[in-house]
Structures are given as structure tokens and as C-alpha cells.
């Protein structure tokens, strides 16, 4: 039997095939069907309630009755600039900046190794190692760090064994970053945050580095650039979108956290704790909303600056 004389039956007609016909004729319908659920979730449920909450920032609270006065005013927003509140903001942004810088510094070499040198097996091990801390409870990790950082904890014991307790004490004696022990200092808080959010920096940086073709690095060397210059002029600019994406995670996660500062760190409040107490015990929803505006504005400013400096040029 020759191929030409072969008489195959047509595929069976069914409801699904007809539905496919209809959808292919009306492309917009597919887009609508695919986007409707996420749009309803994100647009209405999430963004809607967020804006309703943030909108409260233009109201104020009656100092005597403690009830919300539903008249537009800038008084609540201006309260953010009172020294006590402004300190909270500066402290939080400072900690978030330190955490982000430290994360970027630690993540880059790890991500670079995984993206450019690791073989398939090493890469699988790398993903496992980076993701594994995310599988265990957040609170367990934070309390784990409290023990590590404590005065009789593993870190000071290890420093003592290495004869570095002098250095540790000198660090703790420093103003601002120091304190009675690591577990009640900003240093401890930054270390804990860095540990917690490191995976969120490593993964985007690694995927950005993986997308840099090795021929570009070879081309830089070919044109006379040594390793340092190649790194500054080619690798870093091309990895920058990944670093910025990672920084968005580490920065915003630190800005919003209110648990780590309760367990580790000084008694001074950070932004998350302020919002937590204001909407809870204090019942000052307008000021809580005003505080909540800050991380959004800070992130918007950060992204604008990143764009200005050309961080997204390679995208």
C-alpha cells in the first residue's frame, strides 16, 4: 500500500474541539479568560484593600475619644516627621540598607559560582542549599540566631577560641552598631535579616548572571580588559537588573518585618513594630496607614534611582 492511498479518518469532533475553534477565532476572549482570575484577585482584593487602608492616612484620630475623624487632613502625615517617629523611619531604612548591601556582597560570589562554574550536579546541590533554609519555620530560624548571637552563644564562644573576643568586644563597644551582646544589637539584627533574606538575593542575581553570554566576557578580555575591568564594565552592569530585583526583596522584606526586631535587637522600635502597635493596642489606624506609606515611597524612590543610574539598561 502506498502512502498516497492511505485513507486516515479525521480526528473526532467534540465539544472541546469546537470550543478551541471559537477561542481561536476570538483571541481577546482567551486573554480575558486567562487574566480575569488574577486581575480580580490582585486588582480588587489586594490592591483595593491596600488603597482603602492607605487612604486612612489622610484622616486623623481624636485625641480624647480615640475615634477616627473622617475629615481630610495632612496632620497625620506630618506626624511622621516628629522626632520620635522620624527616628523610627531612619532606623528602619538604615537597617534595610545595611541588610541589602550585605546580602548583595555575600550573594554575588555564590551566584557567580553557580551561574558560571557549577556543573549540573553542583548546580542542583546549589539550588537545594539555597532553598533549604526556606523550608524551615521562620520563627525557629530567628530563635536559632538568638542563641547563636547570645553572650554565651556559639559566635562569642567561637570568637573566644580564635582569640578574637577582644575584637568582638571592641565591635560591641562601638556606638550604634554595638550593645551589651550581639543578640541585643543592630549588628545581630542585620546578621539575622541577612541570613533570612539571602536566598531572595542569590536567586535573581544568579539568573541574571546566567543570562550573560560567556562570549561577552571573552570579548572584553579580547579587547584588552583584565578581570577587574571586565567585572566592572561588563559583568556587573549586566547583572545589575538581578541585583536590583534581589534588593527589592531584601529591602522591602526588612522594611516590613516586625518579628526579628522583637526577638533580636534593641528596645528601639522599627517601622513594622510601629505599624503593629499603632493598629493594635494604640488603635491609631490613620498613623499606621501613614507609616505603611513609607516603604512604598522608599521602594518607588529606590527603583527610580536604579533606573536613573542605568541599572535596567541591559534588560
Amino acid at each position, binding site marked *: 500500500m502506498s502512502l498516497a492511498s492511505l485513507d486516515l479518518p479525521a480526528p473526532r469532533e467534540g465539544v472541546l474541539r469546537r470550543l478551541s475553534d471559537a477561542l481561536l477565532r476570538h483571541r481577546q476572549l482567551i486573554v480575558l479568560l486567562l487574566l480575569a482570575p488574577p486581575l480580580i484577585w490582585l486588582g480588587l482584593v489586594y490592591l483595593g484593600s491596600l488603597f482603602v487602608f492607605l487612604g486612612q492616612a489622610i484622616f486623623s484620630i481624636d485625641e480624647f475619644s480615640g475615634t477616627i475623624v473622617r475629615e481630610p487632613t495632612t496632620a497625620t502625615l506630618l506626624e511622621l516627621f516628629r522626632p520620635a517617629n522620624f527616628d523610627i523611619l531612619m532606623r528602619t531604612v538604615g537597617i534595610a540598607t545595611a541588610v541589602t548591601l550585605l546580602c548583595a556582597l555575600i550573594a554575588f560570589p555564590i551566584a557567580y559560582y553557580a551561574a558560571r562554574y557549577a556543573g549540573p550536579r553542583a548546580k542542583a546541590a546549589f539550588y537545594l542549599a539555597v532553598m533549604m533554609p526556606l523550608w524551615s519555620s521562620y520563627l525557629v530560624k530567628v530563635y536559632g540566631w538568638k542563641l547563636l548571637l547570645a553572650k554565651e552563644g556559639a559566635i562569642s564562644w567561637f570568637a573566644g577560641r580564635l582569640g578574637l573576643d577582644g575584637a568582638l568586644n571592641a565591635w560591641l563597644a562601638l556606638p550604634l552598631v554595638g550593645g551589651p551582646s550581639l543578640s541585643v544589637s543592630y549588628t545581630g539584627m542585620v546578621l539575622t535579616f541577612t541570613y533570612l533574606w539571602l536566598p531572595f538575593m542569590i536567586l535573581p542575581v544568579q539568573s541574571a548572571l546566567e543570562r550573560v553570554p560567556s*562570549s561577552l566576557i571573552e570579548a572584553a578580555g579580547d579587547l*584588552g580588559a*583584565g578581570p577587574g575591568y571586565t567585572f566592572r564594565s561588563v559583568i556587573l*552592569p*549586566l547583572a545589575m537588573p538581578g541585583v536590583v530585583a534581589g534588593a527589592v526583596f531584601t529591602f522591602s522584606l526588612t522594611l516590613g518585618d516586625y518579628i526579628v526586631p522583637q526577638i533580636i535587637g534593641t528596645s528601639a522600635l522599627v517601622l513594622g513594630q510601629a505599624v503593629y502597635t499603632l493598629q493594635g493596642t494604640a488603635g491609631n489606624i490613620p498613623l499606621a496607614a501613614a507609616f505603611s506609606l513609607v516603604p512604598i515611597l522608599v521602594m518607588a524612590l529606590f527603583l527610580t534611582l536604579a533606573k536613573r543610574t542605568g541599572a535596567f539598561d541591559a534588560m
Partner: protein
Amino acid sequence: MHAFTASTAIPAVRFAGVARHFGAVRAVDGVDLSIAPGEFFAMLGPSGSGKTTCLRLIAGFEQPDAGHIEIFGETVEGLPPYRRPVNTVFQDYALFPHLSVGENVAYGLKVRGVARAERERLAREALALVKLAGLETRRPAQLSGGQRQRVALARALVVRPKVLLLDEPLGALDLKLREEMQVELKSLQRALGLSFVFVTHDQGEALSMADRVAVFNEGRIVQVGPPEEVYERPANRFVAAFVGAANVIESEMAVTLGAAGGLYSLRPEKIALLAAGAPVPDHAAAIEAHVVDVSYQGPVRRLAVRTSAGVALTAAVPAAHRAPASGESVRLAIPLAALMPMEGER
């Protein structure tokens, strides 16, 4: 001997017993070569034959496992790419996507600390040389494939390399553009008097542009010579088949044609079709064959024939002739002078 190989000047590039292995794969397996200053040298071979690895050994992206490499008399083993006086035009062009065309071309100058105004002037000149004047502020992503190729060329030339390495630079271009670039590259090379080392798997490209061609197979050079020599007198079966698809005449058949025993190559276009009853030309042998397949290729028709002894041959005859049909019997004349002796095996 050819003018370039006879030159006593210091070679631009010299390989002595160079080998590069990747695990069990012998990518380059004992290569000796010498490229003269100002020579257009093509490395031709199928993929995986070691030609690109040889180029990367010159550039410094690979280091040899054995042997010796010199560039203008200076030993370069162990030297990183940024310390070698050679530049590369990459197969994928490797333009920096975050820099403008002008910044791409000026990159090598910036590395060398050339002042801004001077490097902008030199970059403009280099872009004008490759006929891209005025595109300095564009991004590579806004250019066509052919334009990107020219930017890559300008970027490599602007730093005045002693040897320019080109890794299949025309592979991604369409046919018309490729032919234009072949002519341009050749005239650019002549005008600059630079050594070009050009890697390609396209034999037409190698033959039309190069002063000398090295044919690679399985990590070794199987033949080096001017294009005419490589084409007309392939050294062995591999070269005969890879460069221009020549017929291989086995010893047995050579004897029946009246030549001495041995292995020969025979170019398809040397075989002539004899009209019925026509006399056999002098110094030629006539054989009977029947046509298996005919394909029209513009200026010539390619006939796949099988001789009465069962040997498959390909003949290219002028298309102006009447075309024999498949299955038809034909008489073919093979000039004995067209039988080119080759090495036995390998």
C-alpha cells in the same frame, strides 16, 4: 612552494605540535601551522574538527595541553587574552548590549586609557571604515545582523591588532549579504595588510577569500595550501569529499582507465559527456554508464551515474547540453590528466 610558506620572515602565528583535549575528546590533536604576516588564512572543516579550538588557542581563550604557540615570534602559552596582540570577531558578534555602538567600538580604546575625544574620533573612523558612519548612538539591539557584524569588525580593528581572528563571522547572514561581506572583508584585509585567520565550515567561502586554506578533520590539519591546490589536488579521501565533493577513484578502476594503480580524486566537472559515435578525445578514457539521477543547478547539470562495473560517479556537465534522462545509457570521457593522486587512507 607558495610565496607565503617560503617566506623567511617571522610568522604571524606559529603552532608546533599543539594539542588541546577536553576530557577524552582530542579537540586539537597535534597541529603544526605557520601563518604569514598579511596572509588571509582560512581554517576549514566540519563542526567538531578542531578549527574553532585552534582559533581560541590563538586568542588565548583556551590554553594548549601540549605544544607551543607563538605570535610574531613571542611565546604566548599561559598569556591571558588581554595580553595578546590579537582580536576576535565572534560568531555571535558578542556586542555589549548595555553600551551604544560607539561605546562598543571604543571599548578597547577605553581599556587602553585613550582620552575621550580621541577615542570617539577613532571609533567614528572605524565605523566609517565598515560603512556604518552615523550609527554611534544606536544600541546593538537596534541594528540588523549585518550591521552588528560590521560593528564587531570595527571594534576589533580599532585597537590595531597584529592578527585578526574571525570565528564563522558570516554564518548568520543571508546569502546576498554574505557574498557582499566576503568581497568587503577581502578588500579590507588587503588594504590593512593584516593577517586574518578565518574559521568556516563553508568551503566556497574559504576558497574564494583565503590566500591559503587549512582543512581540518578530527583535530588535525589534513591539508594546507592555496585554494586552487586544495580544490584541484585534494590530499586524501576526506578533503576530496569535503571540499567540492570530488569523485574518489579506487586503484582497481584507475587501472582499467589506463592509469597507474593508486587512489585518485576526480572533479565532477572534468568528466565530459560523449555524443553517440563521437571519437574518444586524446589522453582520455571512455566508460559506459547509466544515469541514476539528474539535477539541474543553473550553469551545470549534476549527473549521478553508475558505471558498468558498478562504480557510482558524479559528473557536472554544462547545462546547455541536452539532458540525458534517468535510466539512459551514456558514454563518459575521463581525461587521464584529471586523475589526481591522493594519499592512501585516513
